[in-house]
């Protein structure tokens, strides 16, 4: 059989575009529409997943040229191990989410027509696949815009709320400012290839072979990094993310957080390691620093949220930070000619990108299940859902454990690899970096610990305890397609955590292509059980051993304790002898985060107000108490508010020209013509 992976990937894109067209004809039969389009989307994702995984494992690069596009500027496609790796991530999660959507979107049909959701969902997936396949600046930007525009309409799906329209607008603005920066960056590189004389520098192949002067290379890097960082939600360019991700339908949120952010990571890796490929160490230091800031602040912001989906969105900022830490370290090691360490750090970063796609997708799908069942996003009003949603809660717990970086699940493996990369930094020649880089490990440790606190809160408040709202609604477990999508993602989390050696062995062609070294020769040197990234004496971790020993102890302890049939008595809650304990006495999301809010409060702008309603009897016995708490991102006030104000001011000034009278406009035209005649003669 003579099929190249790139043909498979192309077929996936065509299938998605076809399903988008088909959806328009099926819009009268909504149930059929959902069944057909999401089945097609899941088949297409599976095909893309196979193409990607195949490319990575066979370590090949396919190319293709399509005779569409502008005249004489055809589209170029390429599928190399890096693209294949990201295609696997996107394809994998899209497959799970498409299966999930079969059940999830069915629940929306009753409320509103879903044609728009279905069409843009397919376009969104196609856009992401095309971004990864693109091998020239033109096609890349076209695909990038398809992805951005489709996701804009998806964010806007429930457009009757003002909040959603604002979020979508903000998203659009940031996405376009970023896209302009990426366009300029490609312009700089393409221009330098031909000395700003021809157009034929627009292919990535031409850019790869060109030599750049340090100044131009830096300009290109900074522009593209700005653009991609805006898409990835790196702090301080993150403000759109916690607004836009939560308001989209949950299956779309899962894709936006799980994989759309990864396309930006892909862009960063592609531009730095592949296109420019020679760079000074401080680029890496910049990426590392922004990664650390995003990781720590992202998780702190996440801790302060009461909206489940907003919490997850902020946690994406944190995880993108962790991915960037790995990539930044890899850049530093590369610039000091330490390819093995660079391969380790890059593997850590990319592994975390893969892991984050799985557990964040799972968590957003779980949040979608909660939203679907309880019609509630505010954690302060939820509680006790574990009794009503046994499947969703169990699967959500897997996501929480994974994202908190606890063994034997996958989040731990990538964090462990990142720690190992940090601890190898003493082999750097510069004494200052030797000193400063291990401090980054402390910040990563802080991030990991805080994210555990954050997800104890998310799970504990949402699923444990008792319902906090006024009256508990009728809540039913989610349907089978939704369960199936989540189960597959959860199994992936466990698999990636227990058998990292197999995964690293598979993905080793990526660092081999980019930094010229691979770690699987040492990482799997002691068999598939032990992960030993550099040497066995240096560090080793065995996922299977940890998993099975803990399991064995649990089983043995359980069996020993149940030899004699001990009785379990179920009794009402112990109320310490006072009056009845009510559900209003439980710790809430706000109160859980209170100690950390007090300790790290200086990062936020917090306004806390307590007002006591005096009662007639005495001042010492207030009747009612009003409590208001507002926590805001300081970056909004520092960076965005001035920009917004300035742009409003500008538009007001410009607006004064608009009188609305045709005579005035004719005078403007006349004056302009006279002026131009004077200037140009």
């Amino acid at each position, binding site marked *: 059989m003579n099929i190249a992976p790139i043909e498979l990937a192309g077929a996936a894109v065509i299938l998605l575009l076809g399903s988008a067209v088909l959806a328009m004809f099926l819009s009268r039969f909504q149930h059929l529409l959902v069944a057909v389009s999401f089945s097609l989307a899941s088949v297409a994702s599976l095909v893309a997943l196979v193409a990607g995984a195949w490319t990575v494992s066979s370590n090949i690069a396919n190319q293709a040229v399509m005779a569409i596009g502008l005249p004489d500027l055809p589209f170029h496609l390429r599928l190399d191990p890096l693209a294949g790796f990201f295609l696997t991530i996107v394809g994998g999660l899209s497959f799970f989410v498409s299966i999930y959507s079969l059940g999830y979107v069915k629940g929306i049909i009753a409320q509103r027509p879903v044609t728009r959701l279905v069409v843009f969902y397919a376009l969104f997936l196609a856009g992401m696949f095309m971004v990864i396949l693109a091998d020239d600046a033109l096609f890349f930007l076209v695909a990038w815009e398809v992805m951005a525009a489709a996701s804009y309409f998806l964010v806007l799906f429930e457009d009757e709320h003002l909040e959603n329209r604002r979020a979508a607008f903000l998203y659009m603005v940031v996405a376009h400012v970023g896209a302009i920066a990426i366009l300029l960056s490609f312009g700089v590189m393409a221009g330098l290839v031909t000395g700003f004389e021809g157009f034929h520098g627009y292919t990535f192949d031409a850019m790869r072979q060109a030599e750049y002067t340090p100044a131009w290379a830096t300009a290109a890097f900074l522009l593209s990094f700005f653009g991609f960082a805006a898409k990835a939600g790196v702090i301080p360019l993150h403000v759109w993310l916690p607004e836009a991700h939560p308001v989209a339908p949950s299956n779309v949120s899962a894709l936006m957080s799980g994989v759309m952010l990864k396309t930006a990571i892909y862009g960063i890796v592609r531009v730095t390691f592949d296109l420019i490929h020679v760079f000074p160490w401080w680029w890496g230091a910049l990426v590392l620093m922004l990664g650390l800031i995003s990781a720590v602040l992202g998780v702190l912001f996440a801790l302060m949220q009461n909206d489940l989906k907003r919490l997850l969105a902020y946690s994406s900022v944190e995880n993108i930070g962790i991915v960037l830490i790995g990539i930044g370290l890899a850049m530093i090691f590369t610039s000091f000619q330490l390819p093995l360490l660079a391969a380790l750090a890059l593997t850590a970063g990319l592994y975390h990108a893969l892991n984050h796609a799985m557990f964040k997708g799972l968590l957003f799908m779980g949040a979608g299940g909660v939203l679907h069942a309880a019609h509630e996003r505010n954690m302060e009003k939820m509680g006790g859902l574990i009794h009503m949603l046994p499947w969703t809660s169990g699967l959500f717990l897997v996501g929480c454990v994974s994202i908190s970086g606890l063994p034997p699940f996958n989040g731990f493996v990538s964090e462990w690899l990142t720690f190992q990369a940090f601890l190898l930094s003493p082999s750097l020649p510069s004494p200052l970096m030797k000193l400063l880089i291990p401090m980054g490990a402390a910040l990563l440790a802080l991030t990991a610990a805080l994210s555990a606190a954050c997800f104890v809160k998310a799970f504990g408040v949402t699923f444990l305890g008792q319902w906090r709202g006024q009256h508990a609604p009728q809540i039913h477990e989610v349907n089978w397609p939704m369960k199936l999508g989540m189960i597959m993602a959860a199994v992936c989390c466990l698999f990636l955590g227990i058998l990292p050696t197999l995964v690293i062995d598979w993905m080793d062609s990526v660092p081999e292509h980019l930094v010229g070294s691979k770690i699987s020769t040492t990482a799997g040197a002691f068999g598939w059980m032990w992960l030993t990234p550099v040497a066995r004496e240096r*560090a080793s971790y065995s996922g299977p051993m940890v998993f099975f020993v803990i399991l064995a102890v649990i089983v043995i302890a359980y069996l020993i*304790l149940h030899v004699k049939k001990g009785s379990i008595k179920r009794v009402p809650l112990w109320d310490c002898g006072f009056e009845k304990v009510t559900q209003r006495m439980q710790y809430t999301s706000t109160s859980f985060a209170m100690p950390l809010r007090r300790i790290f409060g200086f990062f936020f702008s917090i306004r806390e107000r307590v007002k006591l309603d005096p009662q007639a009897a005495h001042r010492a016995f207030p009747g009612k108490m009003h409590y208001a708490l507002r926590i805001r991102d300081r970056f909004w006030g520092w960076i965005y508010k001035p920009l917004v104000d300035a742009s409003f001011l500008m538009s007001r000034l410009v607006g004064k020209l608009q009188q609305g009278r045709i005579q005035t406009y004719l005078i403007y035209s006349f004056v302009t013509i006279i002026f131009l005649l004077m200037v140009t003669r």
Partner: protein
Amino acid sequence: MNLYPFAAEMLQILIILAIAPAFVGWVRMLKCWLQGRTTAGLFQPYRDLMKLFAKDVILAENASWIFRFTPYIVFGTATLAGGIIPMLSVDLPLAASADAIVLVALFAIARFFTSLAGMDIGTAFGGMGSSREMTIASLAEPAMLMAIFTVSLAAGSTSLSQIVQVVFSGQSVLRPSLAFAFLAFVLVSLAETGRIPVDNPTTHLELTMIHEAMLLEYSGRHLALFEWAGMMKLTLFMALGAVLFFPWGIGTGSIIASGLAFVFLLLKLAAAGIVLVLIETGLAKMRLFRLTEFLGSAFLMATLGMLSFFILE
């Protein structure tokens, strides 16, 4: 195939399971003597555990499976941790499966589930305990990892066996980095094991308890597993400190060496108990929000250790 390492592994796990209650008994005895009370004896913790194991379990009506599962996972991680730290021999099969970072993460699993269990019933105390425990942990964990990183930078490895061998062979050199790391480790261990001045294991006063607040609803064998795991955790932290910073007498393969290592371990634990009791008797429990300074200084110590490693060594 050499079966000796496996035998040593099993033996070490059994020994830790067996002596953890005695160590806690020893600490309580010392404390009683220092405070001029009569003691309940070294073996009182065993009797407590036996009593709890024999009792029926009483569960709240709305307890979920998390509540019943947590004691087992806490016990499981503590047992695995007991198999990882090279106490009797450096040649342990389980020691290769997990390094110092995994060890910290193992305790984090136990904490994660304990905190969830605290929130499961839906009482105010449970949530309060969980919230405080996670707060303290998120400050203590970076300091703990920094201390471990300092040691592992000095040893060039995060594997515990390797660290022990390197520190042991270079023991004659006085290393300032290790001294700072040790101080940080002591402060963090007090927080991680819930001792005074961070938490008081004997208190059941509503507003001061942290760890106990999460276990308030437990009874019977579940509580026994928690208590036992807690005793093991305390013993393991003391043993970890002894192993990392004073690795004298740890065997490298023969039975006699392991026997000797056991005697050394007992002596070191006895000494660690005395230090612990002196600290606990000399200090009062801190307010929750003073802990930032306490753990901050632990972090600072560890950072100083790391700096001095790069500057002085």
